[in-house]
């Protein structure tokens, strides 16, 4: 075994040495089997022997809307914009901020583009929540979610922006949030992958995803997210080859273990014993994963809640239902990627279809978790890599328009896991273009080590808050690589206590 952390490596070695070191040199096969059988069902410990403080959440279900959903058409209600239809975005609002190469020089300038959708106000636990007609189901859980209007980053293009959200850095090479959690907290059920990623079906897969988004970065690669697929084996190479039954595999594994035992007798390398364990775990996964994917035990009520779509593998609703089942079985980290939110043109058509994909599933997941008493320790997060511009990209009509990338402010929501239910946080100006204070004055927050602007939530702040809810001080979960103690939040990040119950 070699991991990239000398400390981790050393600790592993010490632990193993105690177990298998000198003693094992003279240890017979029977005795070793006994050692192997012990504690097989327990999880794997993480880097942190204990969380830094009592965690509020044990699980994270992250619903990632890849491409950048329009906050202006879904959540951030700006009735004043209706009167400004097709007027140019005032310079003082843009304030010299850069725009992408796609709209920087378009002929019609930056015409203000009000949403075509009707918003209605729903009771929550504060002063109410405006929700677009595109999200009728989400409106029904207004009391459960905490909506942040002032999420922001500096990244204006998909690739860097999505990498930023997922890894805390715009440049590839850093571990993803899920990998950090796996590294810090370990897993709760070794029969299932500790960090599961699902890709939900969409009609508009405009942008690409990358392994790095759930990758281990410089962490040991066993912390990478495992793709749970809706096509073929849900877990790569899970099924026995054609013509090989479960009992064949058992016979084979017994022979394999005997061969490896012999190798261990010869070399006393503790890693060999660890590998025998992994084979046994793989064998159990061959049962536990199909059981997980088998929705026949779910009741009709469940499908009413999630919608009939949930019966079709790979739909967003099915992924949500799977997410609940995974959390039930002790999987800590679940992430669903839904692509197709990059509506540069024809936004109403695309977002209409996108919202149909996700609306019921999102709401059902929250309701379902709540009914089962799981919402208290399961943190649900919804968001994309940025929002979309107040001005139109391409031709503007009342009924049809497009919007460009907008990282300066966008909407995300969280539910459960110790987050205050039914509140909103932060606000934007009358154009949904800049983050604003309560009086509507523009705020220009920057990610900063020392300074945090109340009412704003940089991605580092969001990540710091997520870690906090899981019992981790984001400044103290570090990994030494290339001489630096890296952390998810770089040198930034402030836990936003206003969101925590």
């Amino acid at each position: 075994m070699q991991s990239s952390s000398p400390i981790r490596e050393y600790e592993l070695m010490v632990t193993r040495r105690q177990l298998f070191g000198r003693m094992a040199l003279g240890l017979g096969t029977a005795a070793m089997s006994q050692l192997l059988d012990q504690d097989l069902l327990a999880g794997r410990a993480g880097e942190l022997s204990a969380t830094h403080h009592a965690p509020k959440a044990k699980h994270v279900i992250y619903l990632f809307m890849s491409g950048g959903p329009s906050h202006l058409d879904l959540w951030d209600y700006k009735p004043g914009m209706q009167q400004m239809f097709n007027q140019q975005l005032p310079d003082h609002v843009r304030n010299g901020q850069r725009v992408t190469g796609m709209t920087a020089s378009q002929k019609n300038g930056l015409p203000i583009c009000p949403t075509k959708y009707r918003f209605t106000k729903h009771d929550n636990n504060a002063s109410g929540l405006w929700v677009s007609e595109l999200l009728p189901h989400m409106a029904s859980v207004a009391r459960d979610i905490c909506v942040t209007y002032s999420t922001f980053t500096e990244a204006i293009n998909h690739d860097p922006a999505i990498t930023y959200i997922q890894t805390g850095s715009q440049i590839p090479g850093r571990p993803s949030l899920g990998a950090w959690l796996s590294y810090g907290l370990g897993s709760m059920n070794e029969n299932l992958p500790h960090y599961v990623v699902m890709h939900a079906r969409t009609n508009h897969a405009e942008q690409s995803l990358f392994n790095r988004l759930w990758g281990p970065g410089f962490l040991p690669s066993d912390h990478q997210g495992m793709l749970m697929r809706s096509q073929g084996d849900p877990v790569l190479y899970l099924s026995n080859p054609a013509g090989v039954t479960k009992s064949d595999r058992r016979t084979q594994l017994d022979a394999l273990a005997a061969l490896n035992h012999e190798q261990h007798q010869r070399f006393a390398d503790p890693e060999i014993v660890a590998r025998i364990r992994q084979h046994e775990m793989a064998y159990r996964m061959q049962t536990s994963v199909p059981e997980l994917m088998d929705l026949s035990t779910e009741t009709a009520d469940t499908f009413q809640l999630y919608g009939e779509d949930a019966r079709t593998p790979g739909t967003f609703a099915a992924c949500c239902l799977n997410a609940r089942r995974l959390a039930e079985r002790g999987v800590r980290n679940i992430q669903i990627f839904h692509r197709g939110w990059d509506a540069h043109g024809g936004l109403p058509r695309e977002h209409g279809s996108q919202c149909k994909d996700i609306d019921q599933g999102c709401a059902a997941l929250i309701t379902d978790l709540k009914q089962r008493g799981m919402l208290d320790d399961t943190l649900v997060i919804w968001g994309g890599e940025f929002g979309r511009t107040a001005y139109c990209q391409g031709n503007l009509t009342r009924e049809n328009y497009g919007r460009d990338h907008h990282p300066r402010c966008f909407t995300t929501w969280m539910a459960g896991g110790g987050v205050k239910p039914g509140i909103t946080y932060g606000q934007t100006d009358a154009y949904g273009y800049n983050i604003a204070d309560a009086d509507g004055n523009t705020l220009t927050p920057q990610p900063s080590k020392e300074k945090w602007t109340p009412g704003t939530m940089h991605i580092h702040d969001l990540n710091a808050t997520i870690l906090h809810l899981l019992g981790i001080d984001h400044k103290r979960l570090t990994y030494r690589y290339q001489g630096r103690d890296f952390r998810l939040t770089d040198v930034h990040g402030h836990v936003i206590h206003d969101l925590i119950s």
Partner: protein
Amino acid sequence: MKNTVSIAFLRRLLTFTVGTLDAMNGAMFDASCCRLLSHAKSRSREGMLRVPLRVFASLRLCVCVSLMGLLVAVVFGATIGTVRADEKENVKPVDFARHILPILSNKCFVCHGPDVQEQDQLRLDTIEFATADRGGYQAINSKSPLESELLVRLHSADEPMPPADAEKKLTTAERDLLTRWVQQGGRYATHWAFVPPRKTEPGINDPSIRNTIDGFVLGELRKRDVGFAPEADQRTLARRVALVLTGLPPEPEQLAAFLNDSSADAYETLVDQLLKSPRFGEHQARYWLDAVRYGDTHGLHLDNRRGIYPYRDWVVRALNENLPVNEFITWQLAGDLLPQPTLAQKIATGYVRLNPSTGEGGAIPAEFQMKNNFDRVETLGTVFLGMSLTCARCHTHKYDPIPQTEYYRLLAFFNSTAEPAMDGNKYEYGPVAKAPKDQAAWDQWSNLLEQRGQLIRTAQLILDDGVSLSQDALKQWLGGSGVERLKMLAYWQGSVAMEEVSKRAVKILKQSTEAEAAFTTTLVAQDLPAARTTQVLRRGEYDQPMGEPLQPGILQVMGAFPKDAPLNRLGLAQWLTSRDHPLVARVLINRVWQGVFGDGLVRTPEDFGLQGRQPTHPELLDWLAVELHDSGWDRKHMLRLMVTSRTFRQSSAWRDDVDDPENLLIARGPGYRLDAEVLRDVALWASGLLDPRMGGEGVKPYQPGGMWKALAHPGSNTKDYIADKGSLLYRRSLYVYWKRTSPHPMMTIFDAPDRESSCVRRSRTNTSLQALGLLNETQRVEMSRMLAQRLLTQVETDPTRLNTLFNLLACRNPTENETAVCLGLLRAMKERYAGSGKDAVALLSLGDAARDDQLNPAEHAAWTQVAVTVLASDIAILLY
């Protein structure tokens, strides 16, 4: 003033106490004294106490401290014998570079390092700053070390350093070390890796020593009263060295010849054969390709195909031809800037073009110009300097002495390359060269070049013999390049003496033209006529340049820029390969060592900086680094030294007499799980499927459906994975297509990196996904059934088949127990498949390779199951 006096007085008093108590190993007491003292000091600094009171307080403290000293003297009086031993330990000089600098760097530099923001903030990274007068006191007082403020603050309860809310605290051992260091005068030394390496000899004689490496290793072992582990048996050793050098087990004939060779240098003969094998370069190239992040796609946005694989093929060639390492470096960094660069030198500059790139609509070119440059500088840092330099992108490095300005000077070397910032999602973008499309084409091309050279030499002789030429023609001949002269010869007229030569020139020219027509393209480096302006960027933001435009320049802490070297990439290469560069040879040889022994002498090959781990055998590392220079940068020579050493030949069994789980002492031979590529290659080789053809466009073996599609942009030309057919399925894994956003799962599951950023050390994990892959993946099954087929068709009986299987994979016969286990499995499987022919055929139908249908399906399937199992066992997947 009085205040200062009283504190100075207290400090002197403390001096006495610390001196006495520390000698007595009374750290606890000494800390409490400090606490008292510092309490008084901080209070008085705040001006809360009036003078008389302060004096009184001091006096009271004096009494306390003296009394305590007395008490301690009494308490410890009885154990004076022990004290002496400890005293000796305490007098032992603390090694600054080895022990102190890492602590300062890790725990103090975050506030007191090279990047301090405020003028009056204390810096501890150089002795000048640390000993500067800070208004009546010094952090380190070299003349009276015990009056150093550092000492006070280290033990202060009220104003402790590091402060109570610091993210990193000192351990007791670290505090003690720092205390002892200051007490001993607080001397500084340069971080070991910034001092050019010097050769020393191990100065140890022992019959077990085979070469200098062993002297250094044995020296450390002897300090622990142990020696080398016994040598591994010949068969194990043959397997080990073949896997280490070529990534494959020895060929059966090769193994037999070695075992039958009774001469003293039989092993060396084997090593030389392996070093000459074309498989050598293929295996060694992988490490380099990880480091330079070679990939077949752009990496960002559409992640489209990119034309660069001739660079990969060049790396393999360069390693096989043993191109001296300094030239290997120079060609890659600056082949285009060499006088009349050859095709190979141009192709090698693909190194400069390996950064992931984007063609995302709306992306801002200026931003990506800088991102590309950052990536290049930081990769250069990781690959050659053993440090990423990333910190210095935004601010002067916190730990290592690298100012932000120097980072941007280094970047300026690359801020002149001609390709656009964005790739346009194109296969070719920016400068490209025509290049042979695989190694066979390359061989042919080299051959033609050789023929051309010979022909030109012949022609010259004829000319020298008196064939007259017009003035113009002579000028053209003398000034012409190889190809121009060849053309002249082809069209030569009116000379009988030249007739034969001319005919051959026509032929070579024709062949060359045909060969060139089949060339592919590859991305190369080229400079713009005028470099772009480089300035320091505030916080690394592309749109916030500040200060004067910068000339290219190097990192001062790593030696001077060579005199007369040009201020471009070529000069940069000359700096890197200069004799007194402290890092390059160490960093590179450490990775060569890592490839052989599994771990480097510096266990953090990516970090030779202050925060990295110290070398386990510093003198050995330095000896190797200098030997690399002395040998004329001869990589094969270095590898030969390593694998023929007694150190390498040790048995890799864990030892009862050495408690060293990490094998830091190298008291046993290497043992580790083989890399992803090797696992696949070994099985391809054993099954007889391996296609030895070298080079060419990346190949696509089987992959579960939909993996690319699930991620890809619909506009991407790598959204559909279409597996290859025929022999391409069985090429070495080096050639497996590397889509950076989604490399082949059998690679990533076994820890291969994504090649989006530099990787100089793969992790070696052990997971249940690997277990599933080993037993269920289509190609594993296909290789196993072809291996079974080989055994069934080539070998007579089951026990001898098993012997052959073990000899292929482990270079030995199975033990009695292994035989029983495997034949037992075989029996069970034969019974099972005899009863279900359908299952047998289903298993035997996996993969494209043709099945010998003369074979009994039940028997074939049963042997397939045995082969799958042995191939997945530690017998096959470990180096040992």
